């Protein structure tokens, strides 16, 4: 990969001809451009493909089991949402709440830890020239390509020798490594923190850690949110790792728990009543992440756009 070049050097020669007084607001010229109705229609039709399954899930979570199988998927039946919710949270002595809590803990601790480690490392790779930096970064970059599978199994075997399988540690610690996060942070930090600002802080006598803490972290905000959200989604949605690491159901995250509930209800055996519970439980489980993305969208989109993928 190449160095993330900061602004000016990437400007094309043609831009020099422009009126220098003109403000460089990037997309201002877009606003007064003609809209295309055809494109609007095509895009909204495509958007339907992405939204219809979620809409089905939302509608299905309001139905009781009988309606689930007797009404059209996108029609409402008897409004049974509150009963379903009650079932979700009371089935098997409220194990769902335990799973939700586990998910929150695993995901939050992993994501905070992963983004903290990635931020420090990415900042150092971007802003310091130290012996070995190049080789270390290449190794980290290469690790993006290592498939989880190749790691999960030996990690499990190592953990079982130390007796830490079937504990939260077994799910959290492997999730702390985010090579992609380091990559994002390095590119982001290179762009977002002017070298002159670090120099100025040094001249003022600030130590390296104080500079990182008080100057770096403040400027890295959107980048950190981006890495945090991607790490959060990765652990929140992780199924493979907890599936192999955990075997007591009160340690499960939602993904493993829901999959087991689904297997039980699909397996028949008179437990058909679980279908509406699984569906409602699934619907509930996706709400927090969607809220997180909506609330933080301003930050993570800035984080991605202002440099992170500009190689």
């Amino acid at each position, binding site marked *: 990969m190449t160095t993330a070049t900061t602004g000016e050097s990437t400007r094309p020669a043609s831009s020099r001809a422009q009126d220098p007084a003109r403000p460089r607001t990037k997309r201002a010229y877009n606003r007064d451009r003609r809209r295309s109705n055809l494109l609007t229609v095509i895009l909204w039709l495509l958007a339907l493909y992405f939204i219809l399954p979620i809409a089905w899930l939302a509608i299905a979570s309001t139905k009781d089991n009988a309606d689930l199988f007797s009404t059209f998927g996108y029609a409402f039946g008897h409004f049974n949402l509150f009963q379903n919710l009650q079932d979700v949270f009371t089935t098997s002595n409220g194990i769902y709440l335990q799973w939700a809590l586990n998910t929150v803990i695993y995901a939050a601790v992993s994501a905070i830890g992963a983004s903290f480690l990635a931020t420090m490392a990415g*900042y150092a*790779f971007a802003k310091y020239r130290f012996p070995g930096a190049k080789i270390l970064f290449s190794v980290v970059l290469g690790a993006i390509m290592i498939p989880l599978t190749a790691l999960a199994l030996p990690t499990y075997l190592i953990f079982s020798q130390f007796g830490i399988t079937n504990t939260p540690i077994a799910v959290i610690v492997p999730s702390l490594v985010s090579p992609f996060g*380091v990559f994002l942070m390095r590119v982001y930090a290179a762009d977002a923190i002017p070298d002159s600002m670090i120099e100025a802080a040094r001249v003022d006598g600030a130590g390296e850690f104080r500079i990182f803490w008080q100057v770096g972290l403040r400027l890295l905000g959107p980048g950190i949110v981006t890495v945090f959200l991607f790490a959060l989604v990765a652990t929140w949605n992780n199924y493979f790792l907890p599936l192999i690491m955990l075997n007591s159901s009160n340690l499960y995250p939602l993904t493993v728990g829901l999959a087991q509930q689904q297997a039980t209800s699909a397996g028949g055996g008179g437990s058909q009543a679980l279908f509406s519970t699984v569906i409602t439980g699934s619907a509930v*489980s996706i709400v927090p992440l*969607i809220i997180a993305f909506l609330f933080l969208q301003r930050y993570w989109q800035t984080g991605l756009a202002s440099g992170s993928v500009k190689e």
Partner: protein
Amino acid sequence: MTQTVAAPSRASTGARRRTNANQRRQNRAAYLFVAPFMLVFVLMLLVPLFYSGYLSLFATRLIGGSQFAWLTNYIRAFTDADFLAGVGRMGLFLVIQVPIMLCLALFLALAIDSGRARGAGAIRLLVFLPYAVPGVVATLMWGYLYGQDFGPIAQVFRALGFGAPNLLSASTILGSIMNIVTWEFVGYNMIIMYAALRSIPSELFEAAEIDGAGQFRIAWSIKIPAIRPAIMLTVIFSIIGTFQLFNEPSLLKGLAPNVIDNAFTPNYYAYNLAFINQDVNYAAAIAFLLGIVIAIVSYVVQLSTQRREARAS
């Protein structure tokens, strides 16, 4: 590669000693910043990786326990019809699903970026939404949607007077899984491409527009080449993701037990070998082989695009 802060270019020799001391202090700080990540990285990534490679060279026999077996496991894998079928399936995935997904993502990113559609911001979020849905939930959901008796797809087909298609049969299951994966990841890829599009200096295509270039021409000749690194990133991530497919086959197996076998995808096969068959060594070999295949495919893709770029320039 890395951007430097401490440019040790101060000419005066008197300051050199202080500069060296500063450089040392900065080096130390840099190592301390990098150390926590590298520690976890080595423990959770490199150690398991090498352990996996080590394990794959052994075989457990009924008599004599674990023995060094050279490349027996790898030779076994290359003659294992189940494993090869799984790899073939993933190859099919790679040539069908990945291009469809990425082209759709690219089209959406370009269309939203062009600013010509109404409600582009809302569309961007809606398309991205499935990424926030766990793969497990997405698969459960699509499993219901595919259902032949009560799934809405079948209901619509029946209402239109066609027979309900069986989306979970041997001939359709791969397509059904491709659809789930596409649904989940178009938005993610679109966002990466879109972010890259936003960072193209707009002067580039403003000038082209003044010269009379149309939107398609601008997209093809300016925007797509400009975001090539981001597109490459999505290609590599898609290759990695494809070979790691696990959630979808393992969950759909409940709905279509006779259609999905234990080796449906290499990853699922490795899991079954390790945890059902208790053949850890062979599973490690499969997992390792998978890693090598991914590395080679990613490398070849990167190399071929680099060569094309070199030829173009």
